[in-house]
């Protein structure tokens, strides 16, 4: 891992020290991925006509702040807007002197001050103009868009990003509400999902390998041990030892159902010495407590089986990503051994230090052997496929082996919209959600209506322009969105749901599309968190929409 940083001669670099607190969350590999990333923020698409203040883009800037601080490589802000008085009231990254200047330039300048390691650029134009250059979008690893944005800009932008495999975040923050959605590439694999440490333990008590069997066999003299030694036999070895005894009296079978496991647990418990001053033994308590969890045959989780069955895993080619080559090698490993590579970590347990260390070594050695076997398969596949790319780093294979039981492939979806082209399943999910009490989905629908209203305003001629708070506009677009949602006439939406949507719309209209700094700051935290997951390819990213209600301090996630 240290290889990722050209470490200075005297110890950790000042960069490592600066980022120390976050390196403990995503390690040097995650940090390197961040530093290799250039992020595009499309912070408005020009004015919302002569009657409106336009998108203030505070949530976008706050998101960027939370990415500049942990050290992305660089960012570009695209925003044709000019700083107004109302910007100054909500945007921390503008100063009094910014008034009348380019908002892209001013926010870029002040954000850059946060971290000298980060490069910042800006364009005072609409993103549409930049997209005419085919080399523009591919420079970015992530696109963040501040809504509402007219469809004629949004759709080409998100579609081009999709073709290039660049993830997109589309966000809204209006009044007390915010929503955002993630558009990931069609397949987005994650190796380091950081599962709960509890769930990563794989002790193989029912599939022990020879060295572990040998260690347990050394316990034949259990009865001859003195009280201290007896009370310090690691519980793992106790369980292996008693399993052998159990099998003897059960035709060679381990306890397989709940009833047998409880019987086995009682059996283990009964073997503890109670004549000692403590009246019991901690290691036996640990052993009994671990029975139900650890006396389980290995089984491949269905999510991993699905990954093995995906075409990308079954049909490798010279251009397959590293992930799929390693996944295929692991699949081969599973086919021949019936288990996944051993993660190799051992839980804490009552034991003498030296015994614990030697047990730990048995697990570590086995894990290393498994990695070597998978690595050999990977190397074989690489030469078979005649890949042109550099050899897959050993470390990536090792990390993959360690996380094999928890890898994840997210199937990316488009930015959800209620439109003529909407996915039927998206509309269905929204309709179902409308029946759920206290659901936040009405807020999502209200934001869709706002998008629709803004779309009309931005595409009207100057004479026809109307305010964002225009009654007639809202009424017609509410009906239009509801009709799209139900596939027929809007009356199919029940009165209660209509009332909820109306309440959410009222808040958006009261705010006149404007932002509250506090809500946008919080939203910037939520959005940046997802951006970090996507850029580091660690943890599980949002799939795919989050709605936040600041009045209730509540958020919900939906797959739309």
């Amino acid at each position: 891992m240290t290889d990722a940083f050209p470490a200075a001669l005297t110890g950790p670099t000042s960069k490592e020290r600066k980022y120390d607190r976050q390196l403990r969350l995503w390690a040097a590999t995650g940090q390197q991925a961040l530093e290799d990333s250039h992020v595009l923020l499309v912070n408005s698409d020009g004015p919302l006509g002569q009657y409106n203040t336009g998108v203030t883009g505070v949530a976008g800037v706050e998101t960027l702040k939370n990415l500049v601080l942990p050290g992305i490589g660089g960012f570009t802000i695209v925003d044709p807007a000019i700083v107004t008085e109302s910007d100054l009231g909500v945007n921390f990254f503008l100063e009094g002197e910014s008034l009348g200047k380019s908002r892209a330039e001013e926010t870029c300048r002040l954000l850059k001050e946060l971290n000298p390691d980060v490069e910042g650029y800006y364009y005072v134009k609409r993103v549409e103009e930049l997209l005419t250059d085919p080399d523009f979008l591919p420079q970015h690893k992530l696109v963040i868009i501040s809504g509402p944005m007219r469809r004629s800009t949004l759709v080409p932008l998100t579609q081009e990003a999709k073709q290039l495999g660049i993830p997109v975040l589309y966000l809204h923050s209006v009044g007390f509400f915010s929503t955002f959605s993630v558009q990931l590439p069609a397949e987005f694999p994650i190796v380091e999902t950081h599962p709960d440490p509890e769930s990563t333990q794989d002790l193989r008590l029912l599939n022990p390998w020879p060295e572990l069997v040998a260690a347990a066999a050394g316990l034949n003299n259990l009865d001859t041990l003195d009280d201290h030694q007896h009370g310090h036999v690691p519980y793992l070895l106790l369980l292996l030892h008693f399993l052998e005894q159990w099998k003897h009296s059960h035709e060679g079978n381990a306890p397989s159902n709940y009833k047998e496991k409880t019987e086995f647990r009682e059996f283990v418990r009964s073997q503890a010495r109670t004549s000692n001053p403590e009246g019991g033994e901690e290691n036996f308590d640990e052993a009994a407590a671990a029975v139900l969890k650890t006396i389980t045959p290995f089984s491949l989780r269905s999510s991993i089986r699905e990954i093995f069955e995906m075409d990308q895993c079954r049909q490798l080619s010279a251009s397959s990503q590293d992930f799929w080559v390693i996944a295929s090698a692991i699949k081969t490993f599973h086919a021949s051994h019936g288990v996944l590579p051993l993660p190799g970590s051992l839980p804490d347990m009552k034991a003498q230090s030296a015994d614990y260390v030697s047990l730990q070594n048995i697990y570590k050695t086995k894990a290393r052997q498994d990695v070597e076997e998978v690595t050999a398969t990977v190397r074989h596949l690489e030469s078979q496929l005649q890949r042109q790319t550099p050899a897959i780093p050993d470390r990536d294979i090792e990390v993959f082996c360690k996380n094999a039981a928890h890898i994840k492939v997210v199937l990316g979806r488009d930015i959800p919209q209620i439109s003529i082209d909407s996915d039927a399943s998206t509309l269905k999910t929204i309709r179902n959600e409308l029946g759920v009490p206290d659901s936040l989905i009405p807020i999502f629908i209200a934001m869709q209506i706002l998008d629709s209203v803004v779309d009309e305003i931005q595409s009207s001629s100057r004479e026809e322009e109307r305010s964002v708070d225009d009654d007639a506009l809202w009424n017609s677009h509410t009906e239009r969105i509801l009709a799209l949602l139900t596939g027929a006439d809007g009356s199919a939406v029940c009165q209660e749901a209509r009332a909820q949507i109306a309440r959410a719309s009222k808040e958006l209209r009261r705010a006149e599309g404007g932002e509250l700094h506090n809500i946008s700051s919080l939203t910037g935290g939520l959005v940046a968190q997802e951006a970090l997951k996507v850029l580091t390819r660690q943890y599980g990213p949002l799939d795919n929409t989050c709605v936040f209600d600041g009045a209730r301090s509540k958020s919900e996630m939906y797959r739309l």
Partner: protein
Amino acid sequence: MRDSSIKRSLGVDLTRSLKESRVLLVGAGGIGCELLKNLVLTGFGEIHIIDLDTIDLSNLNRQFLFRHEHIKKSKALVAKEVAQKFRSDAKLEAYHANIMDAQFDVSWFESFNVVFNALDNIAARRHVNKMCLVANVPLIESGTTGFNGQVQVIQKSETECYDCNVKETPKSFPVCTIRSNPKEPIHCIVWAKSYLLPELFGNSDDEAPEVDSTEDADNAKEIADLRKEALELKELRQSIDTEEAHQKVFDKVFGKDIIRLQGMTDLWKEKEPPKLLDLAQLQKESDSIASTVSAQDQRVWTLGENFSVFRDSLNRLARRLKQLQETKLPDQDSPILTFDKDDVDTLDFVTATANLRAAIFHLELKSKFDVKQMAGNIIPAIATTNAMTAGLCVLQSLKVFQDNLMQAKMVFLERSGARAINSDSLKPPNPDCPVCSRLVVPVEIDPELATLEHLVHDVLQLELGYGRDISLLIGDRLVYDQEFDDALPDKLFDMGIKNGSFITVKDDNESARVNLDVVIKTRSEPSSEDSKPATLQKMVEIPLKPKQPAQPPTDDAQNPEQPAPPSTDDAAVTGKRKREGSDDDVEPNSHDAKRLASASVPDSNGIKAIVLDDEEEGAIMIDD
């Protein structure tokens, strides 16, 4: 209008009360920086910010008001200065001071509408919690670790307070485990950091909070031996900057001291005794090791490498100390070096010596990266979690300003789970809480005149109607009871009682009253002719202790100051500063602890239960 969007969404009334408000922000760290920005841009009128810390390089990845050039400067002052630059119209006041200082007394706390806690340690959190309870000021308590965060609204008599649930305190280890019989790698790390390093380079008389050196009959001899050992080590300080220093230190702590331990056969009856390391072999191995090995912090070093880093870091530290000694001015204290997880030299030294010791005791060796986390008690921290947590703090404070505590929530940020943000209703106070269930009465004294007798006779007996059989404690120290009345003529001031001091009154009668805390306010002007040197400031009714089992009597139902069963454990009076946590840490599992604790709260015993109706939430938006 700059604040037009605020007015549109919050309404005229709320916007006005925010503008007229005066709030206190305790802590200018991760959450504090975000909070300051949000408070300013939400239109809070006057914001006071206090922090005793200075800025460190490792703060810059999230504490966005600070830059490289601010390192080593006061967090509070820089935060104010930078925020002021962005918002010249904001009314800000900064203090580079400890919130636990006596100058920040109850009346100072009373001057705020709301207090925000953005702290990183339990002791200060508890202190602010207690002060806010006494001053009856709402407190918004918050904390983060990694991706997790938490926000809690605390209001006296209405909600749980910070101490209504037991908090995990930092772990401490018995001195003999650290010095004679380490059983886990952490014991060796604590030995290196809190014993070896201070003895050689620091102020060895400072007691490390993680070492518990309480003496008892069992370990008295051992502790005496350890003192002797430490003394020998201290003598090595004289020759610490010589070529052979590393050899001398090695011979002492990894040689002579270990041989002494090997001789304590009782310890090794049932486990392997410590084994000596081969110095010649290590020296030979380390000859071929470049000093750059210490940069490899993710990998566990070999013994030879540990030895090499030990030798090298010892030299580095010795050179630094010498330089400090040479440049010291005559009137300055002798210079010392102390452990800092971000100071590479001390971290290298602790890692290498802890690992050498671990090898001697057959324990697992650790990488420098891990040692840093274990020795420094590092809590992961990032900008995103702080941004979310601070935003939630402000949202909860809006409910307080609207007098809408019923709608306020306990909010959690969690990485796992279906939602990013979870909320829970606020719980009523825990009737057994050692802090908020106590009665506190303010007593004003004239520091020139008031004696203990004035307090006992004039205030407690005459005004509050106590009998003769009472005892008074300051912290754990008994200062008065019926048999122990020598101190009666002493001046309170001479007994160390200052403005803001607390004195606990226990009623030792058969049908006793609940414990009472007296909080002292000193008079700023001398007493007039007719006023007594000590006077009660507010009359209170002091309920009786409940009969067994601990169920408060029902006829006290009207009294909002509910009685608590007696408790001698005064967890709140902890003046000792434990700054171990790194950044706004939350206690692990406190969420679960809270649920457990609140589940046991009876609802029919007269406690004013908070009835929350989820149907009606969301009423934060007010029409103009």
